[in-house]
């Protein structure tokens, strides 16, 4: 009788423990999904590669006399590649850390963030407020890893990182939304000058038909890139607003309404990522 009571009491404790574990995991499941999808989405580096390579691609369209200018621009853009990629890398590393804490795991420090610290020390980021924000997020991640933070520190991470993270994401949005879009507009105009002149000079119907097809194909590539840029802006803005939602709800992260709202950000992110991938 006593043994039977002990056994059923143990079974009950195991059941309660299991239910707590399961409900605990489920309660922060939406945050883990959001973090994981954000990390996945932020690492889309192709737009940076395309921006850096624009002067080289334009050599195809521009006269030989412009070659030295384009070569200089190619070299200047190559120097911008690392700072651009490091911004994305930091967002990715942060989201990985957020997801690990939400899963009550230990965060792992991304060694590539050392490159970010070197770049900050070499003043590769001109804007002081952005450099300070990058340094602050990076430091938070280092602290989380060295102090072996777990789920109980999730609120602290969100609370201390939201401000600087918004600055980092906002700066990247400006670069992509304004810079990459304008870069694409220049490439579209280069293509227009090149093909319009060839078409005006040509008298051969077969050549004109071939030129028309090539032009259409190139214009299609530019439209695809334009769409990818638009969707990447959605990704970045959703990461920013989703994280700010976590910040606003940081004291009730496991609340079912908060989880449902965070899930909406994840859906938006997935849609944008799928749209980007459909072009490649």
């Amino acid at each position, binding site marked *: 009788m006593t043994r039977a009571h002990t056994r059923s009491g143990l079974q009950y404790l195991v059941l309660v423990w299991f239910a707590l574990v399961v409900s605990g995991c489920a309660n922060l499941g939406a945050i883990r999904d959001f973090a994981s999808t954000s990390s996945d989405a932020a690492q889309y580096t192709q737009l940076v590669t395309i921006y850096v390579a624009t002067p080289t691609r334009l050599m195809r369209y521009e006269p030989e006399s412009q070659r030295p200018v384009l070569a200089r621009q190619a070299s200047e*853009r190559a120097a*911008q590649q690392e700072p651009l990629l490091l911004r994305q890398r930091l967002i990715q590393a942060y989201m990985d850390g957020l997801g690990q804490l939400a899963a009550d795991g230990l965060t792992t420090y991304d060694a590539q963030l050392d490159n970010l610290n070197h770049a900050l020390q070499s003043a590769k980021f001109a804007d002081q407020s952005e450099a300070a924000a990058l340094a602050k997020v990076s430091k938070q991640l280092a602290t989380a890893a060295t102090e072996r933070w777990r789920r109980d520190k999730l609120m602290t991470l969100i609370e201390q990182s939201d401000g600087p993270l918004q600055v980092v994401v906002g700066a990247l949005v400006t670069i992509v939304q304004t810079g990459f879009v304008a870069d694409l507009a220049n490439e579209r105009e280069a293509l227009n000058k090149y093909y319009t002149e060839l078409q005006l000079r040509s008298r051969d119907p077969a050549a004109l038909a071939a030129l028309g097809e090539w032009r259409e194909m190139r214009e299609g590539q530019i439209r695809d890139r334009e769409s990818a840029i638009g969707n990447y802006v959605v990704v970045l803005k959703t990461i920013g607003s989703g994280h700010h939602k976590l910040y606003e709800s940081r004291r009730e992260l496991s609340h079912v309404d908060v989880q449902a709202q965070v899930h909406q950000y994840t859906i938006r992110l997935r849609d944008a990522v799928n749209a980007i991938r459909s072009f490649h």
Partner: protein
Amino acid sequence: MALSSADAFKISRSFHDLSVAIGQYRFGNWETLSEDDRRTLEDEEWSLLNASSDMLTKAVGLTLDDSDPTGQGVLAATAAAAKAVKTLKQVGKVVNVAAAAVGLAAAIVAKDPGAIAKNSKAVFDAATAPV
């Protein structure tokens, strides 16, 4: 000239618009332009388009604030130039505006404040000269 990122983006856009406007003039008057005029205009178009890319590259690496009033002068001059090219009929005038704008772009790339001010005025004068 200490430009902000936002100013550099705007100047980039101005040079882009000017290059587009000159291109539209060249293609729109293709049959009546001499081969020399076509070539001259085309060279200026590419120079302006590349100046736009230069400003874009700068904008991506610049600070987000600290606007400089000189940037406003450049913007006003290039905006006047783009507007003028859309209405000018004589190729000589278009070439003058384009050449002045290319000079301005070179001064900006060289970061020469005196030359920027001088060339901004030259662009403005060329764009607003009586037809």
